[in-house]
């Protein structure tokens, strides 16, 4: 039932974010990332940027190249799907999945957010998958809303590229920083036992501290897996992970919006929906992997701490990590905000 409340809140927030995006777009007042759209401006002056980047190494060039190929292939397959090629539909679905994988792995704050989140909390791996899926669903939902509105309203402007809008970026980076700060403060106030201690590989069973101090839940001393499931409804973690998912996924990607607009315009909305869900699935896979990586890093660090001589060292390390996770999120939000400002 808590999960239901969280879902409702999440939906309400998603509607709010979508409404803001749409208002900003229809208003035309916002600088948009789509260079064809009125008001868009390059974020750097052409000549100077070319000069400063002249010496830049081609680091990540292969990544940009693969991504470019995937984007282009998906684009071309889509045109073939529209002409009724079933083979293209299959290839298109795989490409959409690859697009999602690369989109989530590429530059952006979503994956860093996920890693930082799980560095700061003991979590069962399923929560990583849950968060990855939540982010992807929020993302896909936002794309659907934008595409529907883009097809329904004659705005007299090129379609928006929300992820490139400066104001949208600033707002989402500020939200990242705010969530980081909020989580940081709750850890400080929680005096160390903010969340459940689910599984230490050294023990094979947990201590079941629950959220005694925070919500007064009864302790559950069952087995690891059962307990993790029981605590999954834990309000603190459910809420913070939902918020992180919302912020990481709220700004829909241009690729998904364009795919949907094309499919709606050509009378194949179901195909568009399927492809965008594949994009979401690809994103979920990548983000889950990053989440698991964050959990792994935390576990290794704690295992290392447990090998020390001092008895209090593991607790100190745990508390340190509890603060480092939210601290990273806060720092990430601030750094991105300052960078985009």
């Amino acid at each position, binding site marked *: 039932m808590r999960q239901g409340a969280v879902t409702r809140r999440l939906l309400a927030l998603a509607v709010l974010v979508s409404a803001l995006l749409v208002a900003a777009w229809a208003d035309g007042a916002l600088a948009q*990332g789509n*260079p*064809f*759209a*009125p008001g*868009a401006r*390059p*974020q*750097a002056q*052409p000549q100077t940027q*070319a000069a400063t*980047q*002249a010496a830049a*190494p*081609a*680091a990540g*060039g292969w990544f*940009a*190249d693969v*991504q*470019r190929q995937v*984007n*282009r292939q998906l*684009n071309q397959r*889509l*045109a073939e799907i529209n002409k009724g090629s079933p083979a293209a539909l299959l290839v298109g679905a795989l490409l959409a999945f690859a697009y999602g994988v690369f989109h989530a792995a*590429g*530059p*952006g*704050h979503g994956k*860093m957010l996920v890693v*930082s989140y799980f*560095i700061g909390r003991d979590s069962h791996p399923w929560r990583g998958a849950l968060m990855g899926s939540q982010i992807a669903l929020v993302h896909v939902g936002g794309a659907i809303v934008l595409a529907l509105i*883009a*097809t329904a309203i004659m*705005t*007299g*402007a*090129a379609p928006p*590229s929300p992820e*490139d809008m400066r104001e949208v970026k600033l707002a989402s980076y500020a939200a990242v920083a705010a969530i980081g700060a909020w989580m940081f403060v709750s850890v400080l106030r929680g005096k160390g036992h903010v969340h459940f201690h689910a599984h230490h590989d050294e023990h094979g069973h947990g201590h079941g501290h629950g959220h005694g101090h925070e919500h007064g839940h009864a302790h559950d001393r069952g087995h690891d897996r059962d307990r993790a499931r029981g605590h999954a409804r834990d309000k603190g973690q459910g809420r913070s992970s939902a918020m992180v998912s919302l912020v990481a996924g709220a700004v829909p*990607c*241009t*690729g998904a919006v364009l*795919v949907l*607009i*094309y499919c709606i*315009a050509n009378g194949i909305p179901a195909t568009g929906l399927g492809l965008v869900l594949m994009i979401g699935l690809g994103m979920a896979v990548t983000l889950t992997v990053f989440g698991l990586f964050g959990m792994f*890093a935390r576990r*290794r*660090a704690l*295992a*290392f*701490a447990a*090998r020390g001589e001092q008895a209090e060292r593991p607790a100190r390390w745990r508390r340190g990590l509890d603060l480092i996770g939210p601290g*990273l999120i806060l*720092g*990430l939000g601030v*750094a991105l905000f300052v*960078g985009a400002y």
Partner: protein
Amino acid sequence: MRRSGLAAIAALAGLGLAGGLAAPAQAHPHVWIDNTATFVFAQGKIATIRLRWEFDEIFSASLISQFDKNKDKKLDAAEIKELEKGAFSNLANYGYFTYVTVDDKPVPTVRVTGFTARIEKDKLVYEFAVPLDQPVDPLAQAFSFAVYDLEYFVELDMGGRERDGARYEGNAGLACKATVGENPSKRIYSGQVAPPEMRLRCAKAP
């Protein structure tokens, strides 16, 4: 064992660093344009560059759905005017993605003329001309031309790799050849992409 713990700490530090360095770029490009350039000569000098841009079908669809108001798959004069206002004029902020270099010095392209658009087989086509305020003498000056989007939202194909993307008009007495290559000193998208550049060489026709 100790080593894996240290590795974990290093990973944590690296993650923090990566977060700070996260590039602003997104999953670009999203739009593809096949660019064809026609170099228009007057008195033996390049006076105007006429450009034809053919958009990919997906982006075409999004613009057509916005601007072909009567859905007749054709753009009439009024629709073209709206299209220019809503999805072309703003490119002034981007120098119309065009880069002209004369004797290794950039010549800003600030105005375009004669914009028109039409729909050809589900693809949107733009046509417009970039006048050169100071016509270029290709026999005496080094001339190169490129079209690219610094932010890589759009990828423009110069057409040189598979076909000769350059056309000529009014070049009587001159034989010209365009070669397309990458200019490694101009990289975009955080240095990850080297956009193609066209170098034009002309000689007196025999």
